[in-house]
């Protein structure tokens, strides 16, 4: 059984090709869709969520064509990448209203929204206006709207973007729990480490084509050959840098306004270390960790050369 099946799928924007003759079968469970910005990842996500119509080929989601098939959305939850909301609504109002679009009566929609909000640990802020939320909270309320109707398939576009390290860890744990409970998850990211923390099953996309699919460990060694760049936003950059430089894998540190940029050849250990530092709190708050996509781009260049 496949949850998403694409056959010779292409999408052109006028003369520009967004996706080129892609054939792929995505199995149940968690699958990571990995690719640098502009690789065609976003086009693929929009095609499988029915926001775009294929120029050529076909795409089946849960066995049915998705374009112009509204009923299928009853079985799908989608968390888009864009930071867009009805800012005047509270988180609870927003999730309840969107759950209501699935046909729940008012009371059931409110209960479903409350469960989803609790799952993303946002109950305390649920009655505040979304406009007052931090970036991480906005990400979480987006996740809540995607799970409120308990979908069979969850499609998450860069879901960890903007979250602090602790919340990233909790969200990854939550996503894995949803998968354990029978929900299939397709999650996109340009950061290999993020995907790797959720699943070993990945689809690599670059230049509008599927470059590789399968087990992440097959490309793991390639990753290690390229120093991995991580940006950390913190008020105590020097103290954090001192602590991190003690790690074996760290090859360079440079400072920038509001934080620091670190290069490491052991990203797994490094991310775990940063998360521990954030949890410990002795170096002040670590607001955000991000990884520019040039890490992945280097791997893609390598793969293409191969």
């Amino acid at each position, binding site marked *: 059984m496949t949850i998403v099946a694409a056959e010779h799928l292409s999408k052109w924007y006028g003369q520009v090709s967004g996706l080129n003759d892609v054939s792929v079968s995505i199995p149940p469970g968690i699958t990571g869709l990995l690719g640098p910005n502009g690789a065609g990842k976003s086009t693929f996500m929009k095609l499988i969520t029915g*926001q775009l119509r294929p120029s050529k080929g076909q795409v089946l989601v849960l066995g049915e064509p998705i374009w112009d098939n509204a009923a299928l959305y009853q079985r799908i939850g989608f968390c888009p990448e864009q930071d867009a909301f009805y800012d*005047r609504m509270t988180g609870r109002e927003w999730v309840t209203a969107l759950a*209501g679009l699935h*046909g729940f009566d008012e009371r059931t929609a409110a209960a479903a929204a409350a469960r989803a909000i609790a799952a993303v640990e946002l109950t305390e802020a649920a009655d505040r206006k979304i406009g007052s939320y931090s970036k991480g909270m906005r990400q979480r309320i987006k996740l809540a709207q995607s799970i409120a109707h308990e979908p069979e398939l969850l499609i998450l576009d860069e879901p960890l973007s903007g979250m602090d390290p602790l919340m990233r860890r909790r969200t990854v744990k939550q996503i894995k729990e949803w998968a354990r409970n029978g929900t299939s998850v397709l999650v996109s990211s340009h950061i290999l480490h993020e995907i790797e923390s959720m699943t070993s099953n990945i689809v690599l996309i670059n230049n509008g084509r599927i470059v590789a699919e399968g087990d992440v460990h097959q490309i793991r060694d390639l990753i290690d050959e390229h120093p991995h760049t991580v940006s950390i936003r913190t008020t105590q950059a020097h103290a954090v840098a001192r602590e991190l430089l003690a790690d074996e894998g760290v090859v360079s540190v440079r400072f920038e306004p509001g934080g620091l940029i670190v290069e490491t050849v052991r990203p797994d250990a490094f991310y775990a270390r940063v998360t521990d530092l954030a949890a410990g709190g002795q170096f002040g708050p670590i607001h955000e960790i991000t990884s520019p996509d040039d890490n992945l781009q280097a791997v893609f260049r390598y793969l293409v050369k191969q």
Partner: protein
Amino acid sequence: MRARPVPPSFAAGAARVFGLSLGEMLWSRRTVFLLLVTGAPVFLAIVARIVRGSGVVPLRVNGAAVDGGSIFGMMIWVFFLRFIVPVLGVFYGTSLIADEVEERTITYLFTRPIRRGAVLVGKYLAYIVSTTLVVLPSVVLVYFLLVPLGQVARTFVAFAADLGLLALGLAAYGALFALVGAALKRPLVSGLVFVFGWEQIALLVPGYLKRFTVAHYVQGLVPHAMPSEGVAAVLQSVLRDNPPALVCILALTAVVVVTLWLGVKAVESREYVLDQ
């Protein structure tokens, strides 16, 4: 896993979107604009009331005083039907889908088990309710400010007809521009060109062109007689070859049904993410 409800029907989906959109529409910045636009005639009516209260006749045509009922009739025609209703139709109608696309919130509505057309219809219904909720009270205020209490009984039927006409006008212009907003990339510009370009020209050109305007049918339903001399006579001349009321009502109803149907078709076939 809990049992899922049956996906909403088209009508139920539209009703849910209506519920979601009404509050957003009523508390939007556009409502401030709407209040300003509909507040202008109220302000003028207050001025006229004060002037009349001081013993001065606020408006004369060829030396003859124009009574409050006639001033009200002219305000309905000049301010509301020829300006406020089409302008609201353009600004709200074209934005029903375009705003959601621009703010990138359309994704949340289009990835739900309701037909995309139901999203347009639900938002259109929210437009009707939110604009009439603001426009009609403004008309009521203008009426009671301008028309002396002694004339209320005599003019009340025409006043009720005005309210119905304004609601029908808002519905027709809103549906037309909902289609424009759903189908075109720069809907606001196209809408303004239609209202302030095409309709103005077509109404003045003798012949059948005026039949391709909404204003032709709206003004055919105006229940008030206009002053027949002076500057107002120019306006009156436009009214002379109006179609019968029944034809106007049928034509405006057809505009609502046909343009809304075409709007639904446009929304269901267009890839809006390409505009983002």
